[in-house]
């Protein structure tokens, strides 16, 4: 009992310090310009409240032996402890001028934390809110699994609809038939109260019913003849493609630009997924191949550099040179494993960037001035010169590369990669040629990054060495971790979450790396396998198709009665 209480209070203190931290660095205030529910609750406050809810949930989860009612009390104590930390801070800020040290301790922040009330009352609200949210977190924990799932998903949906309101409003606007949805769901600065309730209820019900019926639906689908199953899948894929094709038409240039960014990272992610996800070779200098693709296309196509080729002629050359450098990096690191490999590849990435920056290669690569006036990709008279047109180029690229990656994963080479990842010595003892297999991983990974770099060069029309810094390698690796190592759908989800979302939320910019870090830590703690983890293929189901050998042998043998 006592130990539970100690634990819960300790959790509350940690939670309070986290809440204090995100307040002090200005996140709460910066995010409070955007409302989730118009006039009721801002994004900044939502983040704070969700932190409380989630923290109390985790605290209660740890107190295993306690009674349900005790757990609710524990949740409330967690929340209360955390809000006491904040309350002490608010009081302290009244006495001492904290702005001398923490520039973000503005009157606005204090007002936010006290719900706009004057002090004694405001503090009461703060403490009460903490306790109530804490208790709520505990209740969420105690709910039956399906209800809990529905509640959490609905809460996330409301938050996301609030966060992405600009995007969604534009979408509804441009599709005439549903433009009235805007009026129902949104007010000036966020969701309307009614809108939020509708969304919450709708999502919760759909989620609950879906989870309750899923097993049955799945069984019914599996019972269908193989032909119909294939038709259903094909129809699904066609619909997905149609949506992907229409997307930028509906969403316009700005979203098109965001999707282009995502596409470039999907291409790189699919490549690094082969190197790190399949073959288990930790490569931290992956940006080098992106740079090589970009610079090859730049040098060969920019008239300033004496380039005469078109994008389409330069692209395959860029890919080939990227592959070549994949070999050049691969050969010296063949015998190197793990951390050492990571450090060496990190160095390789920096070498390529510094070479591009160097005076030595300035006549060819333009030094810090980079390469200007790279022409756009063209087919006949059609130029890929705006983000929406470029989106289609990237879409084709991503689909092709994803197709190749999927096929390779399920091949002799893909199995060899995964064997190396699992146990290099045993893989070699099973007859897998280390040199060839590792070099192929580096080379194919480099090729995909080369394609991405080539499109990047023609997209920007000018490239500079500082576009190819270490943070791109880190970003690609992070999106693999978020999406799920080795999982191809995971790459796409990871890129959308890690590249797409921050682009949509401009106010995130200052806190981008902080949020990355926090997300990675949380992922490692709660879902280390990633959002869409790699799935192993199920193949033994087909065994029913084969003649049952053993049975036949038994019946052929003379039957002897045994006692």
């Amino acid at each position, binding site marked *: 009992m006592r130990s539970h209480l100690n634990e819960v209070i300790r959790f509350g203190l940690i939670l309070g310090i986290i809440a204090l931290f995100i307040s002090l660095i200005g996140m709460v205030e910066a995010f409070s310009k955007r409302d989730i529910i118009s006039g009721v609750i801002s994004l900044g406050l939502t983040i704070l409240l969700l932190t409380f809810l989630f923290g109390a949930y985790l605290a209660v989860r740890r107190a295993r032996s306690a009674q349900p009612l005790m757990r609710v009390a524990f949740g409330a104590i967690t929340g209360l402890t955390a809000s006491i930390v904040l309350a002490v801070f608010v009081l302290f800020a009244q006495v001492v001028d904290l702005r001398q040290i923490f520039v973000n301790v503005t009157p606005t922040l204090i007002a936010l934390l006290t719900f706009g009330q004057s002090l004694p009352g405001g503090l009461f609200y703060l403490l009460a809110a903490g306790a109530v949210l804490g208790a709520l977190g505990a209740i969420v924990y105690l709910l039956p699994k399906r209800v809990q799932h529905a509640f959490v998903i609905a809460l996330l949906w409301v938050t996301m609809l609030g966060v992405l309101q600009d995007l969604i409003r534009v979408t509804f606007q441009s599709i005439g038939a549903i433009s009235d949805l805007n009026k129902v769901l949104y007010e000036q600065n966020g969701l309307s109260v009614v809108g939020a309730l509708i969304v919450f209820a709708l999502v919760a019900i759909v989620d609950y019913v879906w989870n309750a019926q899923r097993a049955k639906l799945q069984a019914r689908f599996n019972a269908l003849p193989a032909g119909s199953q294939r038709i259903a899948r094909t129809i699904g894929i066609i619909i997905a493609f149609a949506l992907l094709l229409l997307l930028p038409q509906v969403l316009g240039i700005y979203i098109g630009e965001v999707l282009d960014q995502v596409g470039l990272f999907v291409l790189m992610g699919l490549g690094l997924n082969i190197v790190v996800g399949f073959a288990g070779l930790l490569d931290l200098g992956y940006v080098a191949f992106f740079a090589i693709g970009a610079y090859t296309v730049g040098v060969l196509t920019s008239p300033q550099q004496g380039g005469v080729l078109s994008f389409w002629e330069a692209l395959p050359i860029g890919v080939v040179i990227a592959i070549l450098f994949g070999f050049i990096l691969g050969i010296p690191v063949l015998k190197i494993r793990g951390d050492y490999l990571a450090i060496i590849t990190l160095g390789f990435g920096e070498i390529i960037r510094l070479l591009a920056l160097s005076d030595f290669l300035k006549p060819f690569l333009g030094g810090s001035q980079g390469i200007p006036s790279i022409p756009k990709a063209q087919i006949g008279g059609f130029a890929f010169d705006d983000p929406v047109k470029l989106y289609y180029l990237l879409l084709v690229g991503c689909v092709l590369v994803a*197709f*190749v990656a999927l*096929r*390779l994963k*399920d*091949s*002799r*080479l*893909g*199995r*060899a990669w*995964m*064997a190396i990842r*699992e*146990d290099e*010595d*045993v*893989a*070699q*003892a*099973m*007859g*897998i*040629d*280390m040199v060839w297999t590792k070099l*192929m991983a580096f080379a*194919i990974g480099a090729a995909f990054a080369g394609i991405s770099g080539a499109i990047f060069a023609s997209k920007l029309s000018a490239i500079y060495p500082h576009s190819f810094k270490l943070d791109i390698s880190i970003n690609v690796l992070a999106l693999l971790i978020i999406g799920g190592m080795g999982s191809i759908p995971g790459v796409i989800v990871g890129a959308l979450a890690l590249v797409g979302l921050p682009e949509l939320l401009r106010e995130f910019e200052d806190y981008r790396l902080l949020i990355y870090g926090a997300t990675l830590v949380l992922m490692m703690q709660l879902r280390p396998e990633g959002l869409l983890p790699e799935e*192993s*293929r*199920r*193949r*033994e*189901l087909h*065994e029913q198709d*084969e003649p049952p*050998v*053993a049975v036949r042998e038994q019946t052929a043998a003379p039957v002897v009665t045994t006692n």
Partner: protein
Amino acid sequence: MTQPILSARKVIKRFGGLTAVNAVDLEIKEHSIHSVIGPNGAGKTTFFNCLTGFYRPEQGDIAFDGTSIIGLTPDRIIRLGIARTYQNIRLFSNLTTLDNVLIGEHIHLHSGILGSVLRLPRTVKEESDALHESRRLLRYVGLRGKGDVIAKNLSYGDQRRLEIARALASKPKMLLLDEPTAGMNPRETEEARLFIRNLRDELGITILLIEHDMRVVMGISEAITVLDYGQKIAEGTPRDIQNNTRVIEAYLGKDAYKEDLTPEQALARPQ
């Protein structure tokens, strides 16, 4: 029949000042079951590692099927027909049972990148044959219906079976088993003993066995080699070994014979 499939001459492997394998000679007859026994640290597994290319011996020569294998990498040696299992099971633990066996077939598959990406008819045929063969092997070792299980989720005994299936997938001429019955109960050990004998009788594979369980060793071996401190101290039929005082000394210390044990009792003592 009398021609040895494997012959090792004066093999020496040192680690710093320690000579783990010291001038060991060994000849293994084709289609025989040959055991290597010895106290812990006698150099048995090190010797296995020399045979499979994990270690390169400092001196000596090892010839398999007429060709010297000194200096060859493990991926070359398995192509000559030597497959092995490991003392501490080493599966590809995050892959499925079927994938483990398919990787075992690696050396018999030939499809390249282009064939795999475009699913050329030859590749499709090869893959479906490979899958068929893997399922057959899983049935053979008694893992029917467990093809989609992730290897690390298999029971201990099943993991041992899978390791053998993976080794068999390379169609070896000789199979090196490193303590295949370690950690098994008496019933499982008896099953394993019969299974190993079947491997030789049905598939014609030469078996080289490291084993501590004397009932298994004495029951199925045609020849036994005893190592101690890296040196071969005895060799012969099970009967020869059971009556060899040097062997009993090595296992139980110099004065063991004073304890008035019969050699069989001494060897049957747990390690």
